[in-house]
């Protein structure tokens, strides 16, 4: 295998521009996914059957069908059905955020169930309303234990983001592929993208570890 990076050099600025695109898009998607995921997880543990049913159906659909289909439906079907011209960025963060929420909700559900029931009782006995109890007592403890699983999900999201290329949003991966197709050499651009991804994931992991340590400071 003869690798030759010299031809790639002029394309490097083009590839690097993908970092910003990927980061921006991933961070917004993570926030949407986390926020919706928490709400869905709460639905899943509630006593109202209708909410549970809704959350289960949501999870089933968004985990069960290919992300690219969800992306296509949002990006292509929405304007054709509603006439609203949804932008590539908005479709992408919506599709990824909604999809991620399904995964995140399962992780958080498990985390909440693992928190000692006594915590809920203590909060209830103090007259703390449900919302505050969840936000201040249960979730902070749940998240401590599930942080590794959440990190997995965020990293997956970062790397799946290449899909958005299909709707014309030029992320890192897609840029590497374009350079590859231009030159008919795609190992080299892919290796460069690989290194950049590795650095991004490395930083994400470090942030996760830091957070984990902060959450464990009370141990």
């Amino acid at each position: 295998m003869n690798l030759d990076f010299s031809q790639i050099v002029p394309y490097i600025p083009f590839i690097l521009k993908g970092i910003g695109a990927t980061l921006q898009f991933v961070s917004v998607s993570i926030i949407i996914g986390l926020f919706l995921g928490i709400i869905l997880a709460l639905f899943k543990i509630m006593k109202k059957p209708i909410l549970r049913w809704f959350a289960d159906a949501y999870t089933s659909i968004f985990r069960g069908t290919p992300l690219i289909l969800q992306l296509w439906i949002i990006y292509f079907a929405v304007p054709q059905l509603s006439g609203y011209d949804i932008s590539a960025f908005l479709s992408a963060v919506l599709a990824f955020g909604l999809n991620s929420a399904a995964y995140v909700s399962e992780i958080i559900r498990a985390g909440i169930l693992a928190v000692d029931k006594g915590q809920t009782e203590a909060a209830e006995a103090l007259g703390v309303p449900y919302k505050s109890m969840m936000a201040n007592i249960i979730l902070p403890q749940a998240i401590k234990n599930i942080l590794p699983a959440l990190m997995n999900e965020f990293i997956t999201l970062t790397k799946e983001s290449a899909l958005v290329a299909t709707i014309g949003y030029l992320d890192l991966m897609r840029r590497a592929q374009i350079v590859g197709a231009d030159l008919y050499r795609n190992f080299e651009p892919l290796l460069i993208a690989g290194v950049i991804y590795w650095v991004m994931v490395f930083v994400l992991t470090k942030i996760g570890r830091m957070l984990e340590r902060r959450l464990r400071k009370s141990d």
Partner: protein
Amino acid sequence: GSESNNGTAANNESDQNDEKEVLIMATSADFPPFESYDTDGNFEGFDIEIAKVIAEELGYELEIEDMSFDGLIGALQSGRVDFVMAGMSATEERRQNVDFSKEYHRSGEMFIYQPDESINGLEELEGKTVGVQLGTIQEEGADVLSEEYGFEVKKVDDASVLIQELMSNRIDVAYMDKTVATGYINSQGLEGFDDPTTSSPGMGIAFPKGSELVEQVNEILTALEKDGTIDELEEEWLSEYE
């Protein structure tokens, strides 16, 4: 390059046995009428037929591997396959990294649009948004034409996305390979016109850099041109897309 060692034609002279040698071709069978699957899952198309003839002439058994377009380039670069036929255009940049046979077909480009529009020539593209597929020769062509005719270029990932963009009114016109364009016109009721300026290179067979097969294949292609085989195949596979 050519030092690949996984049983492809380029190097299996050394382990001769009584079986017929295998020639491995890679393609991306999502590009009808050049290469696709029939409903039984067999390969069919213009490129496939040419490849069969070439293999026969060379005395090999043809084996076809289907992979997505990115994979084709990886397969060439790593020398895992003997050659690739996938409607590839032989540009100068690409020639640095793969060897191409001589041109065996040229289909040209087309502008297509929704039937409620009416655009009858390059001049009427002014102010419109024209979509092209990234990494294709149409992309390069559109960049040049847009200067002259004053339209905006939007680049997307593949032909199917281009069509959806058209349906969603995000682009006014799609600029694509004529054969593919004709397919969409027939299937989705679109309209279009030929690009009169087309100067794109034609399709070539791609080989790993330094492949010994290039010469032999070029000879065969020349012969096939002369005896009318290529014309026949074009008539059989491509005529309804003209």
